[in-house]
């Protein structure tokens, strides 16, 4: 069958789903494309949900991935508010919750991830929230005005960004973290210390080493959190931000290989040649690190969208990228490139007390594996290039702010 008649169905209208349909048309795919999404609105940017959008500094148009008429203009059929319920690989059909089914020649799963639930007593009280969708963000926004007390369970990126935004809106914020430091799973100790100090200096309370015993309510509404350390935090609202889990059930149910997410190759193909998977729901090879990982980031969603679109359109695969991520809190921009796999050494460049510094993580052969840059774009950009080059760097020069990053490349 040729492109002219082959039907592509994309399931999941998030960042990856919204991107892959655009790349398919850019790369010249001329056959029919249908984008099926459970949410009621077309694909949008999630990063602002904990940042500008939460603070009321972004409008709906700027949140949208593409303008509304984009899909019709590019002959992309949108099926919003529609959940795919099953895949029949033998007959190439996708069942929808409305009772209909869609035939496909190529299926792309862009199912994303969902907020992890905590099996806690009281988790169903009114005022206990999570933050994954625009609808979640609107609920949270309504709960965090001046003087409202917000308790955030989980000191990861989403929790910290929400804390910064809520604090800016005048809310009283407490972050509750089970580990002995913030960002324990996703950043190095110097970063944790820096963000702990910064949030505290802004008036955010932080409870570390603190497990949650129960959420306590009054008349069905959240009122307090009881901690394992004996403390009780009074609050008007709770945000649970303890990570995300891949939406891979649809894939598992039809027998596709899954690990921590749907297993794909470097072209985003699953174990079924007619099915691709992209974005947060995938367990993917990461060539520069010779490993398989599940990433949750916009750059990853875009890279895999390009891989799948290029493969379907018969174009050469895009060059492999170094994974990266950013986070904005207050006036701090954190940019991270690479992954700290096989690292044995940490090099600090700059002084955290100045609010601008970078932490480089090196393998035993003195090659840079990852960099965490706080208000330090040159270190981020040059660090990304150094990671890709795999060139050993002189440690003393890397630590010396008097040596320009340019001279290290």
């Amino acid at each position: 069958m040729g492109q002219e008649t082959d039907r592509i169905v994309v399931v999941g209208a998030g960042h990856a789903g919204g991107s892959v349909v655009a790349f398919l048309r850019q790369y010249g795919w001329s056959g029919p494309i249908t984008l099926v999404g459970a949410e009621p609105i077309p694909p949008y940017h999630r990063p602002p949900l904990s940042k500008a959008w939460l603070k009321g500094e972004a409008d709906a148009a700027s949140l949208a991935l593409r303008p509304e008429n984009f899909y019709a203009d590019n002959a992309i059929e949108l099926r919003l508010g529609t959940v795919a319920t099953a895949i029949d690989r033998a007959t190439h059909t996708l069942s929808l919750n409305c009772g209909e089914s869609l035939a496909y020649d190529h299926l792309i799963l862009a199912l994303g991830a969902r907020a992890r639930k905590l099996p806690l007593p009281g988790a169903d009280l009114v005022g206990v929230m999570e933050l994954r969708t625009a609808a979640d963000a609107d609920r949270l926004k309504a709960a965090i005005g001046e003087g409202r007390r917000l308790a955030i369970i989980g000191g990861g990126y989403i929790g910290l960004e929400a804390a910064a935004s809520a604090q800016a809106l005048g809310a009283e914020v407490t972050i509750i973290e089970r580990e002995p430091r913030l960002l324990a799973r996703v950043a190095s100790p110097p970063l944790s210390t820096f963000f702990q100090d910064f949030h505290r200096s802004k008036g955010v309370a932080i409870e570390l080493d603190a497990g949650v015993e129960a959420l306590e309510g009054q008349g069905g509404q959240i009122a307090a959190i009881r901690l394992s350390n004996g403390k009780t935090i009074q609050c008007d609202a709770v945000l649970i931000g303890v990570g995300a889990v891949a939406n891979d059930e649809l894939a598992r149910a039809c027998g596709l290989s899954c690990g921590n997410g749907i297993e794909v190759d470097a072209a985003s193909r699953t174990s079924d040649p007619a099915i691709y998977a992209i974005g947060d729901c995938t367990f993917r090879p990461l060539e520069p690190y010779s490993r398989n990982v599940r990433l949750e980031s916009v750059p990853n969603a875009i890279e895999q969208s390009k891989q799948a679109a290029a493969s379907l359109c018969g174009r050469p695969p895009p060059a492999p990228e170094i994974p990266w991520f950013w986070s904005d809190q207050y006036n701090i921009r954190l940019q991270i490139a690479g992954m700290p796999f096989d690292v044995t050494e940490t090099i600090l460049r700059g002084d955290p007390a100045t609010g601008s510094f970078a932490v480089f993580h090196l393998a035993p052969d003195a090659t840079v594996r990852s960099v965490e840059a706080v208000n330090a774009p040159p270190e981020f950009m040059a660090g990304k290039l150094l990671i890709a080059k795999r060139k050993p760097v002189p440690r003393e020069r890397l630590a010396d702010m008097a040596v320009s990053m340019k001279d290290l490349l």
Partner: protein
Amino acid sequence: MPKVTFIEHNGTAHTVEAKTGLSVMLAAITNNVPGIDADCGGECACATCHVYIEPEWQAKVLAEAGAPAAQEASMLSFAATTQDNSRLSCQITVTEALDGLVVRMPEGQH
């Protein structure tokens, strides 16, 4: 509406309508112009919206959009294939005076 022309590295030109008040990057995204990825959505965090301003437009862009601010300048100084006329297109706002603007795209954005 002002028009902006994006020329791909392979020479393919795309002339699109660009809304005033929005960025040059958004004009590309709105019209699905290949070669502008804009991973960060215009936050000046990714440098995947890198363009070269055609020489005859450099003075006008400078007058309308100003010189790159600190964040843009430091991102640009390390972007792959940076030239003197490099800009991040998310940091240039479309105005009537920029009607006819021509920008070129680098070979890759990563």
